[in-house]
């Protein structure tokens, strides 16, 4: 059984929602991002999303744009990001890791080789922002052959007629983009989520994660109320970035600040 399925099965049995914190690979440097990554499961992360830095993150707001720039400056490459996951897997075999990013670096790497290497490194899922179902055949066969889930994205603009097409052949979980917008900006109201999630439930039995605009324990709790998981990204990166020195380097507060916030979010009721 895949790590993602095992994780959600376990949480369901325990009657709990999943917390999915996000970090950007190599942000602000490789060692610090690896330390944050290694600390996240102990702080309450159920699954972990790792951003693959890209020069032109069109769906991201200023916070994740800055994270990508720091990561690239610190030498992030896809190969380096896979090696980071590999190092994490030396100590942790259970926590699912999902890589999130944009298509072009994967095309440059070669989609088939990337999926082979990602599986070997211990990656469980991929979220590719600019790969809608209409173009997904570029990646899906190779991901499937290597038992990697390609997580489908559903947006508020995805209407009921389109939903089945978006979710056809999906696996792992479904990621609901809770607002029409970029990361780190608006937050959906509980009423909006209550209206949106049943639309998805009618079409899929997979667990549903909610992302975009989730910043506080209250937001996490609201997501768990209607869905199965909450993704927290920009606010964690913002907290991390606030600890950096004037040169953008990590300080002795950096890792602790992020893990403290993950603990706070994981304690959401």
């Amino acid at each position, binding site marked *: 059984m895949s790590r993602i399925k095992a994780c959600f099965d376990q949480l369901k049995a325990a009657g709990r929602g999943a917390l999915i914190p996000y970090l950007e690979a190599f942000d602000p440097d490789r060692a610090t991002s690896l330390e944050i990554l290694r600390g996240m499961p102990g702080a309450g992360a159920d699954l972990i999303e790792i951003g693959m830095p890209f020069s032109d993150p069109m769906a991201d707001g200023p916070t994740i744009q800055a994270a990508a720039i720091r990561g690239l400056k610190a030498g992030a490459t896809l190969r380096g990001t896979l090696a980071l996951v590999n190092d994490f897997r030396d100590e942790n075999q259970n926590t699912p890791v999902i890589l999130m990013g944009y298509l*072009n670096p994967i*095309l440059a790497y070669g989609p088939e080789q990337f999926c082979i290497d990602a599986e070997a490194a211990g990656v469980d899922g991929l979220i590719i922002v600019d790969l809608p179902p209409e173009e997904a055949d570029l990646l899906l066969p190779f991901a499937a052959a290597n038992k990697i889930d390609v997580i489908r994205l559903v947006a508020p603009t995805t209407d009921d007629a389109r939903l089945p097409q978006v979710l056809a052949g999906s696996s792992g979980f479904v990621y609901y983009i809770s607002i029409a917008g970029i990361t780190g900006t608006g937050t959906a109201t509980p009423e909006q989520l209550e209206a949106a999630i049943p639309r998805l439930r009618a079409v899929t039995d997979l667990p549903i994660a909610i992302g975009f605009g989730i910043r506080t324990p209250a937001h996490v709790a609201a997501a768990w109320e209607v869905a199965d998981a909450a993704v927290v990204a920009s606010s964690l990166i913002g907290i991390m970035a606030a600890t950096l020195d004037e040169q953008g380097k990590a300080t002795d507060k950096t890792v602790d600040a992020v893990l403290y916030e993950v603990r706070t979010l994981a304690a959401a009721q």
Partner: protein
Amino acid sequence: MIDVTETTAPQLANSLHSAPDQRGRFGEYGGRFVAETLMPLVLSVEQAYAAAKADPGFQKELDYYLKDYVGRPSPLWFAQRLTEALGGAKIYFKREELNHTGSHKVNNCTGQILLARRMGKTRIIAETGAGQHGVATATLCALFDIPCVIYMGATDVERQQPNVFRMKLLGAEVRPVTSGAGTLKDAMNEAMRDWVANVHDTYYLIGTVAGPHPYPAMVRDFQAIIGRESRAQLQESEGKLPDAVVAAVGGGSNAIGIFDAFLDEPDVKLIGVEAAGKGLDSGETAASIERGHPGVLHGNRTYLLQDADGQIQEAHSISAGLDYPGIGPEHSWLADIGRAQYVGITDQEALDAFQLCTRTEGIIPALECAHAVAYVAKLAPTMRKDQVILMNLSGRGDKDILTVAHHLGVTL
């Protein structure tokens, strides 16, 4: 016995106009690589455009504005003094710089603004490099009283001050973009971020033959009037097709516009002139086809300047309008199948051609089309005097005089 020629011949005879296919692909280029939030909107633009295209009323309305507001048809000018100075093929300029707003960009803006109105959109956004597309968009938005926001790289805001002021006079809000190198690529990123956050009321008026399907095909269709007119005008003055068609290529809309009417004429050479910047191998270039590799950016698969890890590289050109690390997908396809040829012209060659064109023809070309002039200056002397070069003079250069003065060491 199977006659091979018999079965393959119809395929060879297929028109290049059959592209793009249902998925918006020109060969392996194009497509719709956008976030799911935008996907339904991109599909609705496609449907709305298909409906408009099939509606004679839409074409009639477009024709009216193109004639009485834009000033079409634009003249075809025999550049006699330049021809004599170069001593080879006869050179004709398609005078797109005489359009209202001073460039070919207005052809596309007029078409898309009419489409946005049909779709009931009440807010327009656009990206701009040199400011020509921004000015054309702001102009049409003023005419139709629609609020508009123009994203422009901060570097370009600096080097294209006259156009920034024009846009503001026209009532547009110009938002400088500081991410990346602050040029056209970054402006396009920011416009896409705006679009994804305002899908309910906003129409993204893309200025070139790039972006997700249907934009590359739609913008081509709106610019194809350049080639249609040129072909008829040249038929009248020379009684034949041109031997070569030359146009500058950034995203590639003016080039596609003039190429389109000649795609299925194999004897007409099509030449796109990329900005080589400081040289094709200087590391500071904007020549996507000559120095790039296929990849995905801004909604389409096409040739891109990128590093081995798939990170997009900054382009460089003296011309803000060509300063982009990608190119429209149809150009990538035409390059691969060998139907069009792509060459590079450096900043310095463009500056020299800018002055040559100004002094011989009394026409100040935009720095973008000065690249085309520079290639014509190389090509014409190698051709016979009875041969004809058709060049798209796609924009006027008034906006560039400060940049040119700076590079010539003149203080104004």
